[in-house]
Structure formats: C-alpha cells, structure tokens
C-alpha cells in the first residue's frame, strides 16, 4: 500500500485520464469537468443546506489505495463477484453503460467516478434466486492518517433473479473520509434485499443508485449508528411498469454527530409502488437531517407512493431538519407523506411504570422499541440480530433491554 501525498479533494482531480477503456476515460472526464464547474457543495447548495462540509472540502487527504470492499461470505455458485479493476483491464466492454446508471454524476458521486481505482462487481444471472446473503465489509485501515477512500460497488441482478446483500461500513478513525458509490441494476421481476449497517466513526458520503426494470422489487434497510458526519443518498429510478421499492432507515445520533439521509424515488413508469419509512433518535448535540423526494412523472399513472419520517428528540440540544416532499405530475395516484418530531409517548411510559418498571428502564425500552419497527423489517435473521445488538449497545441500559422484541 503506497501513501501518496496529501491533497484537497478537488486538488486531487487529474487534468486528464490516461488509463482504462475509452468510455471510462470519457465518463471520468465528464465527472471531473462537472465537478470543476460546480465545485463541492456549499451551504447555499439546497441539498446540503444543513450538512456543512466546508472543513471536508478544505481538508487535505491522502488517497487510500486498494479500498475495495472485502467479501465476508462465500459467493454462491453461479454468481460472480469480480474486482472492477480486473474486469476493466480484461473485459472492459462488460461494464460499459453500467457505471453511470444514475446519469452524469455530481458532487461526491462525481468525485468517486473520477477517482475510484477498484471496486466490486457482483452479478446474479437471470433466473437465479440466491437465498444466503452476500456480505460485504467496507473497513478503512486503522491508521491515524487523514485519508480518503472511494469504494465502488456494482450489483447487477438479472431478470427474475434474487439477491440479499448485506453491507457494513466500519471505521474507527474520525479523520477518515469514505466516499462510496453503490449502483444497482435490477432486471425484470428481479428482487433485491439490501441491508446496510453504518458503524463508521468518521466521515462518510455514500450513494446508492438503483435502476429498476418492470415488476422488480428493491428493499433497502439502513441502520446508521452515528459518525462525525455521515451523508447518505439513496435514489431509485422506477423505470419499468409495476416496479416496487421500499426504503427504510433507522438512525441513532449522539454527541455532536451529524447524520443526513436523502432519498429520491422517481416514478417514471405506471403502476409502481414506493414506500419509505425513516426513524431516528437524536440526543446530545446531535443533528439529524432527512430529505425525501418522490417524483411522479406525467405518465406514471396508478402510482402509489408513501413517505414517513419520525424522530425522537431526547435532549434540548438535539436538532432535526426534516423535509419529505412530493412532486406529482400524474393525476391518478395515491400518495402520502408525514413527519413527526417529538419525545417519548407519555401514555406508554406511564403504562410501563404502572406495571412496576423503573422510569429509566422504561425510557430505554421505548427508545429501543421506536427503532425496532424498522430493524424488524430486515428479513435476514443474523443481520437483524446484529442490527439489534448494535442499537442496544448504544442506548442507555441497553443490556437490560436485550430480548425486548
């Protein structure tokens, strides 16, 4: 592993791209020029209004070589999991058109596109249903170095195929930046369960871009457990008739951490269904940001779209900025959205205490229970257990609440 000299994020963009296939050089070139034109987001950038990244933009990082995620589960027969770098060297045409699923990337995604050096491509061929999940861990080395990594993952799930993917983002060092891009391409009638656990103590900007063909089904559950500054975008493009996506998230924010979730669901075809439910607990001087957009295109009739963000504020110094919104251009749709920001429910608290449960334990039970309704949606039992455990270790009296669900 070679350490290169430290540079700012924008300062590390090369003036030209000399290696790789022609289409990739062009893609990286477009990403770099977009980035040079627009710069990194500032407080005046609408989508970054509450997430100050000036210190990140001004900081100098050394690039972390070999930041490809590690596979921690066996790869089932028939599924291929290959290094992006190797495929780009040996059979680059296989990837053409698959590394910019979300269109021309902007901001941090553009930075990743311009600079990623390796990554992972998992391909599930048509008709293959994989029961055992594939597990990935993104872990930065525990060096004290201020470094930046650009993990890149591409998932292609063929027509009628099924995949469960569990991703864990871990890192101990608050000075390290992970700028990840995960792209998912779901064929007709394909199905994917995507669980992500963010236990990254440092800085992370992450993006998941999902493109869905007809009758495909994408379910994402993310559990975010703090981090100095974490920003996650999930974008689902429902391009085929009858596609469905369900985006769920749970976050637990403490100290001076800031966690920002952005979602975008674009209903481009008719008869699609989307539902989002994000829930979080914010205490200390923590800040939660939720921004969810559902766009219903003019031809996307018979759309059903729901969106919900609920927050528990456990201290007076905790902050929540939440903005769910709908942009609807079709007329035959069923859409809803809702937001709550509040404290623990007095009726529930009294019920527990009236049965003899001490007040502090009752608080912990209700705090945990608030997130459990998201965690319980994770279909893969070991992952669900791990998420529960991760939440329990981070709430007061968590040990006493074990087994609550």
């Amino acid at each position, binding site marked *: 592993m070679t350490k290169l000299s430290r540079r700012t994020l924008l300062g590390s963009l090369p003036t030209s791209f000399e290696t790789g296939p022609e289409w990739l050089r062009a893609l990286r070139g477009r990403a770099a020029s977009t980035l040079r034109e627009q710069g990194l987001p500032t407080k005046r950038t609408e989508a970054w209004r509450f997430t100050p990244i000036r210190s990140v933009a001004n900081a100098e990082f050394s690039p972390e070589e070999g930041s490809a995620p590690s596979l921690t589960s066996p790869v089932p027969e028939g599924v291929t999991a290959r290094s992006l770098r190797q495929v780009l060297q040996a059979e680059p045409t296989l990837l053409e058109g698959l590394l910019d699923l979300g269109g021309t990337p902007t901001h941090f995604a553009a930075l990743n596109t311009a600079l990623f050096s390796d990554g992972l491509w998992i391909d599930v061929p048509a008709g293959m249903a994989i029961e055992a999940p594939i597990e990935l861990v993104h872990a930065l080395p525990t060096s004290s170095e201020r470094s930046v990594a650009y993990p890149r993952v591409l998932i292609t799930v063929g027509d009628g195929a099924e995949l469960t993917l569990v991703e864990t983002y871990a890192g101990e060092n608050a000075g390290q930046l992970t700028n990840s891009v995960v792209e998912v391409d779901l064929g007709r009638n394909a199905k994917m369960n995507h669980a992500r656990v963010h236990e990254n103590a440092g800085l992370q900007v992450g993006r998941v871009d999902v493109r869905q063909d007809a009758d495909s089904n994408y379910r994402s559950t993310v559990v975010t457990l703090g981090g100095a500054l974490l920003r996650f975008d999930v974008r689902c493009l429902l391009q085929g008739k009858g596609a469905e996506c369900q985006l769920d998230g749970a976050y637990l924010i403490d100290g001076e951490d800031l966690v920002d979730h952005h979602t975008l669901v674009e209903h481009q075809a008719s008869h699609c269904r989307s539902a989002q439910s994000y829930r979080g607990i914010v205490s200390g001087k923590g800040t939660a940001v939720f921004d969810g957009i559902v766009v219903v295109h003019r031809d996307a009739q018979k759309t059903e779209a729901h969106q919900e963000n609920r927050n528990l504020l456990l201290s007076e110094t905790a902050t929540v900025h939440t903005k769910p919104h709908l942009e609807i251009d079709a007329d035959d749709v069923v859409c809803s959205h809702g937001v709550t920001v509040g404290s623990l429910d007095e009726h529930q608290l*009294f*019920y527990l*205490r009236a049965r*003899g*449960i*001490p007040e502090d334990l009752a608080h912990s039970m209700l705090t945990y*229970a608030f*997130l459990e*309704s998201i965690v319980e949606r994770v279909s893969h039992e070991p992952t669900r257990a791990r998420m529960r455990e991760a939440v329990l270790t981070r709430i007061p009296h968590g040990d006493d609440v074990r087994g*609550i669900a």
Partner: protein
Amino acid sequence: MLKIEDLHVEVDGKPILKGINLEVKAGQVHAIMGPNGSGKSTLAYVLAGRDGYEVTKGRVLYKGQDLLEMAPEIRAAEGLFLGFQYPVAIPGVSNIYFLKAALNAIRKHRGEDPLDAIDFMKLSKEKAALVQLPDELTKRSVNDGFSGGEKKRNEIFQMAVLEPSLAVLDETDSGLDIDALKVVAEGVNSLRGPKRAMLVITHYQRLLDYIVPDVVHVLIDGQIVRTGDKDLAKQLEEEGYAEVRDAQPL
C-alpha cells in the same frame, strides 16, 4: 389495605374529585359505579400515580403508607395494579418481555431473585390459559393490533402474573361482548382471596353479575353519594343514576 380520606383532585385547575372517603379491607371487592364524567377514571389514575392529577386535599393510605408520595413503579412494586380502561399499544416491545421485566422489577423491590426464562414461561403459560389468551398474543408487541377484548384479557393476564394485593380495574367490561366478559370475570374471580382487595370501576351493573362485589359505591360529580351491598347495583340498573343523583351525600 386502602384508606382514602377526603380526597380532592383537580385536573387542569378543574375540581374532579370533591372529597372521597373510602376504605377497602383485604379480601373485599368494592365496586364503584357512576355515570360518565363522575370522576371514576380520575380516581383510578390518582391511585396509580399518573401525572396531571393534582391532589389539593386529603390523603390515601395504602398498607398504612402514604400512597400519593410513591412513584408509579413503587406503587406497582408494593402490590398495586391498575387495569386500564384503554390499554396502550407499545409496538416493538413484546408482551412477554414486558411482563417479565415488570415481574422481575417487582421481585427485585421485594428482595427476591429474578425469575429465569424457563420458570417465567411456565408461569406465563399457566396464567394465559386462565384468561384464554392465545400463545401468539403473548409473543406479539404489547397490545399492538389487539382487539378490544384481547386488550382487556391481556390486562387480566398481567394481573394474574403480577399477583397484586390491590387491583383497581377501570371499566374492564367496556368493549366486551358477553362471552369475553365471562372469561375476564372468571379470571378476576380466580384471583379473589383473603389477602387481596379489588376496586372494580364500572358504568354498568352487568359486570357485577359476574364479579359479585361486597360493597357498592355510587360516584356522582366527584362524590360518593350512596354506599350499599350488591343490591344497590341492581337498583341502579333498574332506576338509573337520576334517582340517586338527587340523594344527599352520605
């Protein structure tokens, strides 16, 4: 067991209870009947220690101790049980975990060792059978998606497991059909005993056909206006509250 002396209670500055006097001895079942808005539920909540009820006068002695000084969980640990009129749902907390936590908190207060999982499951199965609460409901989140009858049965199931000395049952009959009412009443009756007292709060006489009280009080406008035996309940059913409303407070 329970001695209420000249209890005055206000909610949001408005007087609700206006001088209640009541004594319940161990082994007795008292019924409190009254029309809507008479202060029945307020009395139940004040005894259990809910916030928002201001005692402006009077006192409540429970086993000789000042009940109103105790936190709700201490009251429960000392053997007081409130059967809620509207049991709240708590998604994400399983019924069985909740009840085990409650029982072990109470045991800890009494200086007893916690019940382990196996012994608790045995106890829980036995008590669930008492009120015919399906196994599946004991594992679900507390009251989440329960029907009205299931919620009430769940209250009595909890009472059976926690074995309180004083049970205050707030309109346990509301929302129950006759079959469910019988099941709930049987559960309650099986818990009657010389060391246990009960305060059964109800709007209708119907429940008292199945849980036969030793003493019946009529609560109107924050005061107990009549006290009698079980025949008073029958009289109320026939004549209505209007007759007794004009009676002089005792």
